[in-house]
């Protein structure tokens, strides 16, 4: 591909893409399990409060300034396509324009005459990889204490902290992940707290600010953590929780406070709307997030290894009326796969990283495959700046482990573990995660079958813009941090 087309075309493409972005930004993204009734309060009347004192007035105080890279009408012809939505197309055609997927079709599909052609023969095309569990930016490299901003270990309930305020956009790990085909990430707070804080969904583009990476229209999620980490952190400080039962009491107390807080605000808004005298509750960032979960606006991403603990968390979700979107790590997902399928809860797991602590002792290679077989939604995640670069191969290992026992999992199915399924879990599946007309053109061209150890991402498109090209140094962005350092940020 020649760079020549970029300049004249980008203005048009950027305008198209921006228009699209603006529309998406206005999309009303809510959880699958929105709380009953609870219509949004009248914003006009609530404005009577001084700015910043009513969370319902401005749910997005750190708005995205993301602008897609310049792109143009492009067709990848002749590659094997895994759509992410269940199809495999041998030697097919993918056309993207205006930041969107225009056409996905079999060999012989008409290609617009003025499209930039990319020969995909012998190569593979998939949706951009989505890592639903990343700490890039909040635990960046180099790993030094002054940049270790992922765990606010000062209280077991820090639902009021937001990962986006800890992200260092210059983390060189973002560039490595992009070269591994990762186009979207969920950046999570750590797992040291019962309620760790809000996650941030980002598009994996270089940016000076975090706002410049924020995925427009993506919903918020709240990180929760089961098990050993919170009780060890706080037990070690001589305070609650110090046991598994202390953890559970901590979650329930958190939800009781949240329900009470939500009721006060709902009462206030109801009275205010009727013109009655009403005292506004004092806004509380921690409870804002928890109440947002109870309203169905904020998703639950739950770090939880053990089968029994997952079952307990599900009961808590029933007790307080919210939905857990995904159990992260879920080393024992295979033990409760039917329950997860019934509850509509995904697991995000590794191929076989296990055994590093008691709660991960029973992790097995076939975890993803067995859970998938039971009908639950499976995601392969990284939680690691190295593994995030190899999620395609991690998925290959997990698929192989299933096929070793005759589960016959196809590449077309397994690719969803790192594309459409994580998109669903983090709430962006209407916008990205599969190669379907109208979706964002987040596309990877692989040198080989993406599940192969030898596969490399040759080209990575994000919203139709060429974000990485293995063969062209002009599309190999480098973090400010790496200038003037050994290797100058060249990592391949």
């Amino acid at each position: 591909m020649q760079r020549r087309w970029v300049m004249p075309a980008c203005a048009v493409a950027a305008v198209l893409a921006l228009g699209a972005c603006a529309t998406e930004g206005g999309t009303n993204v809510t959880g699958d399990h929105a709380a009953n009734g609870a219509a949004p309060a009248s914003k006009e009347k609530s404005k009577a409060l001084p700015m910043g004192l009513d969370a319902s007035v401005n749910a997005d105080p750190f708005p995205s300034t993301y602008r897609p890279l310049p792109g143009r009408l492009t067709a990848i012809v002749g590659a094997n396509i895994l759509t992410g939505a269940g199809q495999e197309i041998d030697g097919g055609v993918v056309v993207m324009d205006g930041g969107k997927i225009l056409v996905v079709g079999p060999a012989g599909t008409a290609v617009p005459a003025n499209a930039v052609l990319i020969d995909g023969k012998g190569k593979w095309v998939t949706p951009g990889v989505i890592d639903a569990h990343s700490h890039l930016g909040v635990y960046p490299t180099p790993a030094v204490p002054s940049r270790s901003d992922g765990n606010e270990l000062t209280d077991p309930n820090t639902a009021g902290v937001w990962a986006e305020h800890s992200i260092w956009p210059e983390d060189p790990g973002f560039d490595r992940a992009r070269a591994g085909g990762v186009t979207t990430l969920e950046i999570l707070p750590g797992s040291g707290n019962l309620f760790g804080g809000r996650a941030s969904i980002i598009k994996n583009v270089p940016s000076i600010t975090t706002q410049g990476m924020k995925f427009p229209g993506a919903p918020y999620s709240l990180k929760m953590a089961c098990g050993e980490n919170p009780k060890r952190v706080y037990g070690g400080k001589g305070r609650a929780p110090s046991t598994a039962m202390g953890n559970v009491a901590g979650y329930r107390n958190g939800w009781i406070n949240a329900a009470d807080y939500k009721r006060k605000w709902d009462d206030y808004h109801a009275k205010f709307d009727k013109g009655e005298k009403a005292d506004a509750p004092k806004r509380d960032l921690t409870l804002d997030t928890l109440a947002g979960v109870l309203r169905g606006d904020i998703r639950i991403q739950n770090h939880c290894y053990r089968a029994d603990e997952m079952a307990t968390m599900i009961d808590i979700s029933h007790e307080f009326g919210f939905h857990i979107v995904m159990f992260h790590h879920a080393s024992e997902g295979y033990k409760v796969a039917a329950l997860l399928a019934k509850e509509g809860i995904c697991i995000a797991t590794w191929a076989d990283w296990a055994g590093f602590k008691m709660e991960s002792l029973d992790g097995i290679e076939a975890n993803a495959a067995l859970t998938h077989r039971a009908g639950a939604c499976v995601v392969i995640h990284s939680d690691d700046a190295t593994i995030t670069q190899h999620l395609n191969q991690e998925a290959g290992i997990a698929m192989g482990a299933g096929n070793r026992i005759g589960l016959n999992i196809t590449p077309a199915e397994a690719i969803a573990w790192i594309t459409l399924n994580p998109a669903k879990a983090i709430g962006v599946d209407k916008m990205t995660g599969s190669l379907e007309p109208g979706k964002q053109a987040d596309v990877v061209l692989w040198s080989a079958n993406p599940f192969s150890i030898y596969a490399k991402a040759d080209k990575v498109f994000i919203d139709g813009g060429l974000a990485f090209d293995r063969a062209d140094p002009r599309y190999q962005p480098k973090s400010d941090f790496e200038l003037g350092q050994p290797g100058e940020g060249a990592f391949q």
Partner: protein
Amino acid sequence: MSRALLLALAASAVLTGTAFAETIAITNAKIETAGAAGEIALGTVVIKDGKIAAVGASVTTPSGARVIDAKGGVVTPGLIAASTNLGLSEVEGVRATRDEFAGTDIGAAFDVSYGVNPASTMIPLARQSGVTRAVTAPSGGRGFGGDQDEIEADTLTAGTDSGHSAGASLFAGQAAGITTAAGSPDLVFKSKMAMVIDLGDAGARIAGSRGSAIVLLKSTLEAARHYAANRAAYDRGQSRDYHIAREDLEALIPVVEGRMPLLVRVHRASDIHQVLRLAHEERLKIILEGCEEGWLVAAEIAAANVPVLIDTEADLPEQFESLGARLDNAARLQAAGVTIGIEGSHDFNNLRQARFNAGTAVANGLPYPAAIKAVTSNMARIFGLGDTGALEVGKTADVVVWSGDPLETTTWPTAVFIDGREQPMTSRGLQLRDRYAKHPDDGYPLAYH
């Protein structure tokens, strides 16, 4: 006679039986010999009396041999994992299961071989990754009581960067060679294989700075030499004072005499340069491990004829001492003439990563045959295990049959032989898998099955 040899003899006495004498022919296989013969597209490997008896395209199956049809799969030598904590650590987050740290009373004298646990569930897991031998090695520093999150809790909350190294010895201790054979009372086939030391950031955390660490190292080596020449005087109390304990001095004598390799974990190009210089000055036999910036000084490493153990996935500026990490490090070092060994992760639970890391190296420019050697015959060369690591007549019959390309994500071993004995193809993880995969819905909990 060494303790290890005694135990090895005891082990062979116990295990000598019909299986040992069995003659096996693995037919219909693509053979990666990792030796001079390279790759044999289709052939047979014959195992007899624990040794490789024949390898080739036109080998006749001996009469009476048990035939294993590889069905076009690949046969390789057993993989040799380097610098792992296999057999020393069971659960990372459970301190009582970890025997890889020297503690604070001794350093160089620490011998991991006494702590190797043949019943570790990680041993069958290693076999499932095609690993038949491993160099199990101590970890540097003083050790800690929990996992990464605990370090995090300790250091981040307190806002300190203690590194958990206060009071630790500069030397991590001595590595041992183990097999992953099932049923052995002792897996150690060679103790005291290498002395391990962490330099760079880790050495600086112990000594105060890089400069202090090198000076301390040199003075310790000098003390060991002096002690070796003045043992009798030491026993009479007529020797000078040494800054480390007698057992540590004893342990270092083979190192200063060049009989035991010093395995140096080091990362930054300038640190590699300093270590090569020190090794030359002190006439040490060394092995480098880590070496993320090795590619920057590849010619110097090659000229010194020093082998390197690397993790080929390392491409992040993980620390300030590895800012130049890159994916083609293995390819560049190999092209410069350096003998490389490719490791998985030091952590037991990522041991399976060794073969995938070899594949990753191929994807980033390392020739395929070199990648195979980097997890087999090169490792044997590096650690002086000349009778293993290749499918050549007369070598120890450590053999793995794979369902396909051993470096690929979707293949697995179908048969593993160690010293000519076929190994059980199971592990705790596979038992769990089978319990849940074959769920018989008969009203009884799975614990009954």
